[in-house]
């Protein structure tokens, strides 16, 4: 007997369509009616899961959008009082309503609405944590529980953030628009920050589970891609961010071993790096090299590209890498950048100077005591110098601080290499 092919929906179709539908409907109903838009979307999905069980439409995405469109026309018509006019005028008004709503459903306008939604959710007046939650909910179509799982918190905390963000937007009458001129670049920066945070949350979070982390990275890349497809969002820095995400994501599968232990860059199997993503990363990096605005994403992407270009860790062009980090430090003088730069210094054979620079980081005592990564790097540098006493001190401190099992294992392995060590 012939086996019927199982019917499949594109991965995350509902999520992605939810983002589009909410954006378009919010543009129609107004930001103050965003809950109404969310309700219409939920209704459309319920209708879909009901009807599709018996017959799946030829174009599921179009079916959903059509359902949203019809509902929007219904709602707007319901608010009109056609009956008080003549039949002739009422018929014309009805037709005009339909026409007015209809025009927001072209591909171009849908993309435009999505961009407006991204700008609204990433509005600089909102708290950063609220921006992330709201973006995931309204732009990305994540459920509350999924956001909580991704950000390693509870449902109530996310509900609170969403409520607070929506209230703020209503009370301050934040416009559902794409900013223009000087304001655009400034606002794009805040969007980049949120997208990069989302990506990093997925890439680096040591607590969230692997599946949701992959979703987060994919989602951040998808949103950056939406940005790049709009004439306002199509900026060199957008491409630089996209490039950075692709190059980082190319290493997603090689950064953990079978036992979920972290594999450091120098030990990763470079054959496992995703060539397709690296190619895309280079392509976007190329596209980003226009104009005269050099963003931090340009430099970070160039750094990531250097890693991908090197056949092995020891082949890395450390001189070039150091130049890039020097540049990055002038634009983004954060302790993490300084710490990473110290690692490069050590690779260039200047471990002593690297240690001095780590110890010169502002507030380093507090950082060493609170964040495992600083003591881990410092311990590592001392290990390179065979200063076993100091190495043991900082590696043990890091071991004490990290909540991550893979990292604990890694640190323990290092401590075991110290002669005479009992760990």
């Amino acid at each position: 007997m012939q086996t019927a092919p199982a019917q499949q929906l594109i991965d995350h179709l509902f999520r992605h369509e939810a983002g589009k539908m909410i954006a378009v409907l919010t543009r129609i109903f107004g930001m103050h009616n965003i809950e109404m838009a969310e309700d219409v979307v939920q209704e459309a999905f319920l209708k879909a899961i009901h009807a599709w069980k018996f017959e799946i439409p030829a174009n599921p995405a179009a079916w959903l959008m059509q359902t949203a469109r019809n509902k929007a026309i219904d709602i707007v018509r319901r608010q009109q009082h056609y009956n008080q006019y003549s039949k002739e005028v009422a018929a014309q008004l009805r037709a005009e309503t339909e026409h007015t709503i209809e025009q927001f459903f072209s591909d171009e306008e849908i993309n435009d609405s999505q961009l407006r939604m991204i700008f609204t959710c990433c509005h600089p007046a909102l708290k950063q944590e609220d921006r992330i939650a709201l973006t995931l909910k309204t732009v990305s179509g994540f459920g509350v529980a999924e956001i909580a799982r991704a950000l390693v918190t509870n449902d109530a905390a996310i509900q609170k953030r969403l409520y607070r963000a929506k209230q703020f937007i209503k009370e301050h009458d934040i416009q559902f628009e794409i900013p223009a001129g000087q304001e655009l670049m400034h606002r794009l920066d805040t969007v980049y920050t949120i997208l990069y945070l989302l990506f990093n949350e997925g890439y680096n979070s040591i607590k969230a589970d692997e599946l949701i982390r992959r979703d987060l990275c994919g989602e951040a890349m998808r949103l950056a891609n939406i940005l790049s497809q709009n004439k306002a969002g199509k900026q060199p820095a957008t491409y630089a961010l996209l490039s950075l995400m692709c190059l980082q994501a190319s290493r997603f599968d090689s950064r953990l071993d079978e036992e979920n232990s972290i594999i450091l860059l120098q030990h990763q199997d470079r054959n496992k790096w995703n060539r397709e993503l690296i190619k895309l990363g280079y392509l976007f990096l190329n596209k980003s090299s226009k104009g005269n605005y050099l963003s931090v994403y340009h430099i970070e992407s160039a750094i990531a590209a250097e890693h991908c270009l090197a056949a092995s860790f020891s082949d890395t062009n450390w001189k070039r890498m150091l130049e890039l980090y020097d540049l990055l430090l002038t634009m983004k003088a954060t302790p993490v950048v300084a710490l990473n730069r110290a690692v490069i210094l050590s690779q260039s054979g200047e471990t002593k100077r690297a240690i001095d620079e780590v110890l010169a980081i502002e507030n380093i005592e507090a950082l060493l005591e609170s964040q495992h990564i600083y003591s881990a790097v410092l311990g590592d540098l001392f290990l390179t110098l065979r200063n076993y006493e100091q190495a043991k001190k900082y590696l043990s401190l890091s071991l004490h601080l990290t909540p991550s099992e893979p990292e604990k294992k890694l640190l323990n392995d290092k401590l075991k290499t110290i002669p005479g060590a009992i760990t």
Partner: protein
Amino acid sequence: MKDFMLIFINGEGSKDFSPEQMQANMQEWFGWVNDLKNKGIYVGGEALLPAGKTVKGKDAVITDGPFAESKEVVGGYFIVKAADIDEASEIAKASPDLPYGGAVQVREVMKF
């Protein structure tokens, strides 16, 4: 083999699903139907729109309802082939909506 009608009564459980959960539920259904088709026991099925009218009594009074909001609304039906009612009930047990408050009525189609 006889024909049995599986009548699906919607639950309320999926009301607050996230888009991803809805899609997962959808995918489960596709898998189930596919499985029934591959076994050659799926005859057909149709969905019913949730809103409707009821006509009742000697005066044929027409009233609105069942309503979309009703928990008890019939969502659709399948016709499947099974040896007897027990086997048909076993088939119904695999309905993906049972965990979300859905129910399935199993009825044999009468043959004259």
